[in-house]
């Protein structure tokens, strides 16, 4: 049994959440309603954030980046020409999340706040150096996404705080990128492994650097620093790429669970890192 509130301002929502620790913020509900039903989460009230005007919309920012309001659904992001042009690595990952009807409700903000180690939106946002804007009774603050995840289901959100915006800086806008994903089937399954690869900047003959991140291989989504260091600058040859992929498999800390063994996850990190870097390398060469 829970009540339902539909506030129209961030202050109203945060005020209620701060005063009622048993209340939960609601966006798409695609994770929350399932967790409430199977008892993984409790709530005496759901505070629906979808009527707050300032949480809507995808906007270009002054630094050439993009700001995504918390209400924005995954399908809205996938339909955005601005996001597709600036951050192909993000659209490549989001189109693999769940299935079309779920993406009509599920939000990017909700995927981050849920803090699943297998969150598909996290690796692309980590390689893009994204940050999240958090608002609470004490005001707003911006936290780098890399510092937002604390563990499975745990984030830097304080009581009464909500995630209001996802901010992607212009630094890596238009860099080629791709997302490699292993799952038991194409749709409607969590990732066994997800690997985001960003390479750029996209100038023929110019210097190239690489940024890599993965999900479902550690308690939180992680950057793959050892593999990045091995790829170094420029377009790696196949020998170097194989060494980098082996380092990625060694630097992650996967679990064995119902979807996969630890060994299989390491092997899939290696495979998808290799394939995904090859795909981005081809775009940079082309």
């Amino acid at each position, binding site marked *: *049994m*829970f*009540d*339902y509130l*539909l506030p129209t301002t961030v202050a109203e929502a945060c005020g209620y959440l701060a005063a009622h620790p048993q209340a939960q913020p609601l966006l*798409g*509900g*695609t994770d929350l*309603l*399932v967790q409430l*039903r*199977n008892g993984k989460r409790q709530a005496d009230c*759901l505070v*629906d954030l*979808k009527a707050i005007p300032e949480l809507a919309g995808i906007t270009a920012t002054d630094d050439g980046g993009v700001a995504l309001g918390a209400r924005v659904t995954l*399908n809205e992001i996938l339909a955005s020409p601005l996001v597709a042009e600036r951050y192909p690595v993000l659209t490549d990952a989001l*189109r693999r999340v*769940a*299935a*079309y*009807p*779920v993406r*009509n*409700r599920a939000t990017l903000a909700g995927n981050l706040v849920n803090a699943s180690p297998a969150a598909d939106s996290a690796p692309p946002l980590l390689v893009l150096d994204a940050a999240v804007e958090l608002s609470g009774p004490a005001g707003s603050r911006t936290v780098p996404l890399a510092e937002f995840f604390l563990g499975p289901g745990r984030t830097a959100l304080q009581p009464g705080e909500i995630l209001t915006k996802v901010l992607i800086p212009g630094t890596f806008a238009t860099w080629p990128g791709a997302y490699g994903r292993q799952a038991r089937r*194409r*749709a*409607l399954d969590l990732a066994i492994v997800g690997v985001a690869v960003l390479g750029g900047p996209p100038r023929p003959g110019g210097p190239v650097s690489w940024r890599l991140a993965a999900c479902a291989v550690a308690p939180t989504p992680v950057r793959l620093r050892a593999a990045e260091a091995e790829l170094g600058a420029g377009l790696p040859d196949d020998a170097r790429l194989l060494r980098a992929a082996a380092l990625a498999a060694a630097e992650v800390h996967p679990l064995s669970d119902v979807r996969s063994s630890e060994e299989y996850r390491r092997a899939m990190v290696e495979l998808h890192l290799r394939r995904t870097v090859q795909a981005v390398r081809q775009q940079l060469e082309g």
Partner: protein
Amino acid sequence: MHKTITLKVNGSLETVSVPADRRLLAFLREDLQLTGVKRGCGEGECGTCVVLLDGEPVNSCLMLAVEADGREITTVEGLAPSGRLHPLQEAFIRHHGVQCGFCTPGMLLSATALLQRSPHPSDEEILTALEGNLCRCTGYTQILAAIRDVADSRTT
């Protein structure tokens, strides 16, 4: 803990009082007797409960009835309001796209929304549109043929 909501269901305007925690799926099936909406997994994995929300497919098990306030819902019953079958329903029958029939309402609604937004979809687009609807009999090939048939026979 009851909320009064006003919504349009299959073209007819309803103002009703619902418990705040009632799922849209339970509201449609049990309160409005629209049993064409099927309950499968209850957690967004199977697509049998898909309905159209302002024309776009959503899983009714992953929504509260109160979230539909002010919106328009279409269930499979709304595809044939006058008792005359929708072209997609005719095509599903013609191509034997129905076996046990449990996935059919969700399949039809996902396909209806697809043809609304993309009248001449590629095979890839059809597969993506149906990726949230599981069929266990399985009639995927015939379902694809039925949708292809309706899309190809359109003149616009």
